[in-house]
């Protein structure tokens, strides 16, 4: 990492956890915590004024929860920040809702700070699915009825075979260069395919695309 540090907005209602995470993340040389919010409404204001690169967003908060805040950030800002949901429990239903609302990934608040920092860097570059296993598990715990979207696999424009392959590789957590290497095609081709996949699925980011792929059965969880 060179140049300016990545700027972070920390959104968390529990003061101990928030101040603790701020201290830990600030100690990372390439990260800078530029703001702290205790609820979703405050997060919206600060994200608009501070323009952070990444927002670490708690889900359950007073006044406005993290799901609503994520949705608004996505809708209101022209260049929305990357959003990582921070959660107490991995098997939290709300995390799933937040990912569907457009968060780029999620991480446990209790994770070692190195792992959180890694997640921030990964999400900031934007071409990798954060913790593919965790996302797969999250989808797998959903009751099947909730997973079967009536819109189902019938997309307005169906994915081509190549696009489905790429979606499957995205689901395993491969980055664009890795996918390119895996399929022995150029980076540009991969980027085009990925962007087509996102458009066809109506997804805002890789995470949402993978979740939609799992939900609609285009990709079956557990089958790489």
């Amino acid at each position: 990492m060179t140049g300016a540090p990545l700027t972070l907005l920390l959104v968390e209602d529990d003061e101990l956890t928030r101040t603790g995470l701020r201290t830990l993340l600030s100690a990372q040389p390439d990260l800078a915590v530029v703001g702290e919010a205790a609820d979703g409404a405050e997060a919206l204001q600060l994200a608009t004024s501070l323009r952070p690169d990444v927002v670490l967003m708690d889900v359950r908060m007073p006044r406005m929860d993290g799901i609503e805040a994520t949705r608004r950030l996505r809708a209101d800002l022209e260049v929305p920040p990357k959003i990582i949901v921070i959660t107490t429990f991995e098997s939290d239903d709300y995390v799933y809702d937040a990912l569907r609302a457009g968060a780029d990934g999620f991480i446990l608040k209790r994770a070692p700070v190195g792992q959180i920092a890694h997640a921030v860097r990964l999400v900031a570059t934007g071409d990798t699915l954060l913790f593919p296993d965790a996302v797969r598990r999250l989808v797998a715990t959903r009751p099947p009825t909730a997973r079967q979207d009536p819109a189902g696999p019938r997309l307005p424009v169906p994915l081509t075979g190549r696009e489905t392959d790429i979606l499957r590789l995205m689901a395993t957590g491969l980055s664009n260069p890795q996918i390119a290497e895996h399929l022995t095609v150029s980076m540009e081709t991969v980027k085009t395919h990925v962007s087509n996949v996102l458009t066809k699925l109506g997804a805002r980011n890789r995470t949402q695309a993978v979740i939609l792929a799992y939900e609609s059965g285009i990709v079956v969880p557990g089958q790489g």
Partner: protein
Amino acid sequence: MWTLISPTYRADTYRGWTLAMAGVMVSLPAVAVALAVGLVSGGWPPAVRWGGLFVALAGTTAVAGALPAVRRWNIRLANRALRTRLPAPLPVPGRAWPVRARTVAWLTLHQATGWLLLTTTVLCVTTAVALGGVWIGGGDDITFFTLPVHIAAGPAGAWTVPVSAAALLSGALLSALATALLRATAPVLLGHGPDERFTALETQVRELEQRNRLARELHDSVGHTLTASTVQAAVAGELMETDPAAARRALAAIEESCRSALDDLDHVLGVLREGRAATTPEHTLADLAPLLERLRHTGTDIDVRTGGDLTHLPATVSREAYRIVQEGMTNALRHAPRAPVTLRLTAGSDWLAIDMANALPDHRPPRSPARHGGRGLVGLDERVRLLRGEFTAGPGGEGGWHLSARIPLRAAP
């Protein structure tokens, strides 16, 4: 012989007797009313007088049986005297008549038993006292219930002793019989009817829901505290050298939040805990070796093979695994004593697998799991499924018995 005498010295017999006598007492108001009716109708034909007496008795009992307090009182009395555990009556919406009818039936039975037992007791005791007493007093010619009886003095009259004893014994036996009758009938007549059972179930479901909610809230609050403490502990570690004051503040915050979480646990667990708490912690797979050692002492050959790291399993999984092994081994020992048992425990990255197999002796067809050791296996099945695992138990290949369980190691498989 012993069983025949045993009712005479069992406290149970006399508790039942007391209950029956209470029936006599309870019937006194009804009897008084009936006698009053008898007096008033003095000049009438006998059929009318007896009819009036009966109607007065039945009417008084019916009125008493309709009173909720009478039922509650009778249930308490029965529980005291018979050591039954009849539940207290519950208010039920709608028809109360079936319950009242059963109470009336109980009152009738209770009182009738009481009078009958009082009569037999008086008869038996009188017989014993009269015969024995006269013999001890030197013998005499007496009229015993219109029967002339000669009791000789000395050894010739010694027959009165066994007869007296027999009379007392019959009294005790009849009392034991009455106790058994009342005990067998009490649950039917005083126990919960369908409406009350429904109400009780509803209450139970509501309580379980409350418990669940509390458990969930506890899970959340403890989760948050542990998260905050983990983060603060990392902060303390980070700042230990550069900013000792801040590190100390972080440690103080951990102390404070852990203390309040423990208070929370203390409070909620008191509510959640059903019945008495075990004084010893539940066993986990760490206690497997002593368990197998004990089982080997029974002469059973147990072939154990383990794979993976069994020491760092989630505590819930480890406890459940121990129970499965314990229950499975007990079953194997019960149905096929001394037949060798194989046990495989394998911890993978996502699953714990338990496989147990034993041969059945003499190629006896394995008995159905529903009938034998069923409760235990059903319980295991339920709990394993609660942990999102899989459980099967039944006849395996080659006429043996096979038990298999797969438990995921994470909340989300």
